């Protein structure tokens, strides 16, 4: 009997080690799949993002931006629709350069992909293609539960200093590759924001988060909810990714 028990324990231990090893081997594949889902190379992408920001003691603010992406050329144009006072403002990215356009002064100024959108917790970088595999290396991975959903918990450390956050912890659904939760940490190791992805939509066979909830962990009570609508993979004219376009839409 003792022998059987020993064999059973050994068997379970070996199976766990094998499963863990298999999972560890799978992590790059999971991340590559996440990269693929967010990569629209080969086609253009457009959508409207509505961002509702909550701050304690303040009225909820609503921002709306129309996003145009061309991942092949690392281009995006982001046009502010709401609030009315900022209507016509825009961001234009070409390679690593980001310009901000102010229709009041009719001038472009240098900006950054790390800049927040309007007064929300969302950043420009949240709306564009990211390559997790290029930017981060896996430093840890384990299984866990997010509510009632089984997830892979993947701990990532920045490979370069070009990314906003030094460390990112991702909770990826086990049964199908869907990022459900992301925790972003500062260089000093402090949790700065938590992002939840409760709703997804399928666009041309790929899953994209249609609702994102960003929680500011440094300022309790501050959060932004981002909803994606009117998504499209139709081709966009080249002029959309030019400064002239931002100037023109304001005429």
């Amino acid at each position, binding site marked *: 009997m003792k022998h059987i028990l020993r064999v059973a324990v050994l068997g379970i231990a070996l199976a766990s080690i094998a499963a863990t090893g298999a999972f560890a081997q799978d992590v790059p594949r999971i991340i590559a799949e996440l990269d693929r889902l967010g990569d629209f190379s080969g086609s253009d992408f457009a959508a409207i993002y509505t961002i509702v920001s909550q701050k*304690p*003691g303040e009225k909820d603010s609503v921002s709306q931006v129309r996003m145009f992406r061309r991942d092949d050329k690392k281009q995006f144009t982001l046009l502010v629709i709401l609030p009315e006072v900022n209507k016509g403002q825009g961001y234009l990215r070409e390679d*690593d350069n980001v310009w901000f356009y102010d229709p009041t002064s009719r001038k472009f100024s*240098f900006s*950054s992909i*790390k800049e927040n959108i309007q007064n929300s917790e969302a950043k420009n970088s949240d709306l564009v293609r990211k390559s997790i595999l290029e930017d981060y290396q896996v430093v840890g991975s384990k299984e866990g539960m997010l509510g009632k959903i089984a997830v892979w918990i993947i701990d990532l450390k*920045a490979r*370069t*200093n*070009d*990314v*906003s*956050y*030094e460390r990112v912890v991702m909770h990826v659904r086990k049964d199908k590759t869907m990022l459900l939760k992301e925790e*972003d940490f*500062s*260089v*000093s190791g*402090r949790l*700065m924001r938590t992002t939840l992805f409760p709703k997804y939509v399928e666009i041309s066979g790929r899953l994209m988060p249609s609702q994102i909830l960003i929680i500011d962990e*440094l*300022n*309790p*009570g501050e959060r932004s909810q981002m909803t994606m609508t009117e998504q499209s993979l139709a081709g966009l004219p080249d002029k959309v990714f030019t400064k002239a376009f931002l100037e023109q839409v304001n005429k």
Partner: protein
Amino acid sequence: MKTLANIALRNLSRQKRRSILLGSAIAFGVMIVTLINGFAGAFSENVSENFSNLMAGHIFLSGSEKEAGGKELSVIRDDSALTAAVKASGAPVKYITRRSAFTGTLIFEGKKIRTNVDGADLEQETFLRERLLLKKGSWDAMTEAGALILSEKIAAKLNVEVGDRILVQMQTVTGQNNVGEFTLAGISYDAGIFGQMMSYANLAYVNELLGLKPGEYQTMGLMLDGLKHTEKSASDIYAGLSESVQLFTRGEKDENGAQTPFQALLKQQKKESWEGVRYRLFTINEVLSQVQQIVAALDTTAAVILVVLFVIIMVGITNTFRMVMFERIGEIGTMRALGVQRGGVRSMFLLEAVFLALGGAVVGILLALVAMSIISLINFGMNSPAFILMKNGHLSFYLPPLKAIGNILVIAALTLVAVASPAGKAAKLTPAEALRTSK
């Protein structure tokens, strides 16, 4: 001519009350204008010196390091070439400061404020203790690594007290998000709009937050033995540095005044490309070149006030001298009958006006000097919101002698213009006509 001058002086003393009233009007105008000129004269120097103290230097050196990926980092890793050039220049350096700084958001219990935090080596920068007066807390608490000093206004906005722990959200030199934790060690007296420039922490901790190594920093400040040495010393150091390190061309002022030399220097950095580290040298005068525009605006204001006041005073003088002409019409007739020519009569009136103007102007300047002396005795304290305009807590004045002489000449000229018409009329009178006219 001497006789005419004597008659003019006698005429002024004959109507003492009238002369004193007219002279007082001129003196008042001159006093106001002189006070504005005096304030503008000291304004530039006071602001520059106070900013030098705030920024800890008259001359600044900072480095821009180009990373392999093209990213620029603001850092000085090895300053041996810089210190050697400073030493070789023979500049009268009182002390050298080494600082790193960031702009970040301070967060405390739901309240937050964006501010600049300067990291200073407080063991080296002992002068900071003498200059920055603390309302609460103590400098001794700054020995703690994460200690922070805030100005009164910022502390009030955050609702923090000494000992409270404050979070700071900022970015490293490479642009990554970082969070630090400070403990409030002291609250300094408020410095008005410059309060946001007066948050100090330890250099080592600021470096850690910025992602810099110990011993590295961002800006070297050279405090000289007075503002007057700035430009020559900067040129000498720049010349010495150009032989040993890569340098940005020193900023030049835009012709239309749209940008300061410092802004021009930063713009140049965006346009050019380089490898390794390139240093920039700039002076407090370049950073504050817009102060010169304020001085010019003050001087223009003073000139406008001078003209407006004197247009009003000129109307009074013209009317008064018209009356004088009618009062003395018999006297003019007698003088003309005794052989005094038309030019003599005109000169007599004009001399009278010039004496009045000169007397009024000199008294006005003297009154202004007395007022300046009294005002400059008042101690507003180093904690005054307007301390940046003052010299050690006192309002100070400097009246450039040429400006004072210029004002006197302008007033004399305007007075002559005002009296030209009555003097001309007096000169045109024939002796018979003048003697016939009854007052």
